[in-house]
């Protein structure tokens, strides 16, 4: 074996051999294992068209689905001190952060955007799960504060969309302090009588679920999303009892009184829009009576 066989031959082969179908055109549904064609999946808001399983969706696609006409204005997320604890595990946190930034093109695990939903002004703060598991550190906390301030300034509703494993361990107690901090942020929105809606997506756990995510005026969850405080494995190891299959799913939380509604992704724009309209547009011209509408 030498550089000829190692490098040149594969290159030549790749030139002469017919190109295979790229993997990313088709993918398997995590739940039913049905094959999904990428274009059909995208047109179905990343929901499996065989079984209805909600696959993860990028923040960009998510925002396009929620805002009217897919139109919105992105806001910069604020700067915070960089790795103040100088955290190091097997790798330096500062390196991890830099790598993740260059890999994702994001500054941290949060995107803030504003626009309208069914005509009502809304600020959305959405977690990027692809950025260190959507974990909450100072940057995420500061972004939520900024989103809340923007909602108040522009008399908009605040919608936060967690997709997060919880606190960012590498920021230790600073990440813990984001729990009260984010609660203060949403408290300010409430004091201004503006709606604060939480859209719980997969996953919402740990310090994220135990702070701003559970004090919304309205809690909406996506079907099948994992929502809970302690992880399933931790609970099994602690209490050593069998847990039901649907433990900590959105539907389970609905049955236990923790969320208001479980809404399929394709209907989120409509449902959230209606709620905002009801809360922010309290008087409107009555529609024609139902009977007349049907006749027409």
């Amino acid at each position, binding site marked *: 074996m030498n550089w000829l066989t190692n490098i040149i031959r594969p290159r030549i082969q790749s030139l002469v051999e017919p190109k295979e179908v790229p993997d990313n055109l088709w993918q398997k549904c995590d739940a039913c294992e049905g094959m999904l064609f990428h274009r059909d999946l995208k047109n179905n808001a990343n929901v499996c068209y065989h079984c209805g399983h909600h696959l993860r969706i990028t923040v960009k696609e998510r925002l396009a689905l929620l805002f009217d006409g897919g139109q919105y204005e992105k806001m910069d997320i604020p700067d915070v001190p960089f790795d103040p604890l100088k955290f190091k595990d*097997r790798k330096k946190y500062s390196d991890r952060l830099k790598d993740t930034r260059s890999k994702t093109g994001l500054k941290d695990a949060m995107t803030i955007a504003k626009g309208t939903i069914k005509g009502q002004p809304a600020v959305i703060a959405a977690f990027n799960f692809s950025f260190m598991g959507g974990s909450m550190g100072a*940057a995420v906390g500061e972004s939520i504060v900024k989103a809340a301030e923007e909602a108040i300034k522009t008399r908009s509703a605040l919608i936060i969309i967690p997709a997060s494993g919880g606190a960012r*361990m590498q920021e230790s107690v600073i990440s813990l302090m984001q729990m009260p901090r984010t*609660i203060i942020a949403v408290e300010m929105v409430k004091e201004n009588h503006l709606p604060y809606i939480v859209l719980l997506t997969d996953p919402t756990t740990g310090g994220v*679920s135990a702070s701003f995510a*559970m*004090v919304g005026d309205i809690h909406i969850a996506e079907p099948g999303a994992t929502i809970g*405080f*302690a992880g399933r494995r931790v609970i099994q190891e602690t209490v050593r009892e069998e847990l039901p299959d649907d433990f900590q799913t959105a539907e389970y939380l609905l049955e236990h009184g923790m969320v208001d509604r479980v809404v399929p992704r394709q209907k989120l724009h409509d449902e959230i829009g209606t709620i905002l309209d009801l809360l922010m547009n309290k008087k409107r011209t009555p529609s024609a009576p139902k009977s007349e509408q049907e006749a027409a």
Partner: protein
Amino acid sequence: MNQLDFEKPVLELEGKIAELRHMNSDEDGMNIAEEVERMTAKADRLLQSTYSKLTPAQKVQVARHQNRPHFKDYIVELIEDFTPLAGDRNFAEDHALIGGLGRFNGQSVMVIGQEKGNDTESRIKHNFGMTRPEGYRKAQRLLAMADQFQIPVITLVDTAGAYPGRGAEERGQSEAIAKSIESCLRTHVPIISVVIGEGGSGGAIAIATANKVFMLEHSIYSVISPEGCASILWRSGEHAQDAAAALKLTAQDLKSFNLIDDIIDEPIGGAHRYRTETIHNVGIKIQAALDELSDWDKDKIVKDRREKFLKFGRDI
């Protein structure tokens, strides 16, 4: 036996001293009193040198020491007429978190905190200080009561974390913690928190969103236990010592980042050796904090607490 490995040389010396004292009527001519004195001085020096350079991992051990004074010990020493108030009025009484009215240096106060228990039976009763949703909902109820009657609140934090169990999840552990933090933030009377042992993550901050937050010298406060952190980030629990250091969980670390207001000294040798002295130090600090906040009006108290927590992560 609950011995700390790094205290072994001291404990051995102390054992020898006790033995010597026991044979004080020995007739071999050796001056036992002198020897005892010499060895006691040596033990003191050893203790001092050990405790002046405890590693973070050692502090974790000290913070969890079973002889360390727990919630109930503080009540006995510091609070008169303590009247525990039970139940969340919805589902159950949670013995992991105790709360009630009492008098601290003559002043009516609401005291809330986790109790870990000190023997097998009481540990089980108190669920090792791991609070369920009902405990946090009881805390919310008592915070509202303190607000209603304008009574300052003292919270003593000592928990490995909120209880991870099926029932706790079903009854909304996350919501209970979140609402407990929210209740702290809405309370118009001073809240003084002291981390007396372990400040375990969400389970701790739920009752520690306070105007003044103090930590005992060898207590710890962290977003995750060193063991948990090691198993996730190092993929092995064996790295708990490294995790303890990386997490910056000691009182000294938190003070250096201004995440707490102050450190309360423990006598050399730790709270588990000098229980009453430690509790006394805590009492002095709480009184000083109450004095400082005594003439603040209710809006200033809420505003101060908010501003304090809003800056964490921004200015560090």
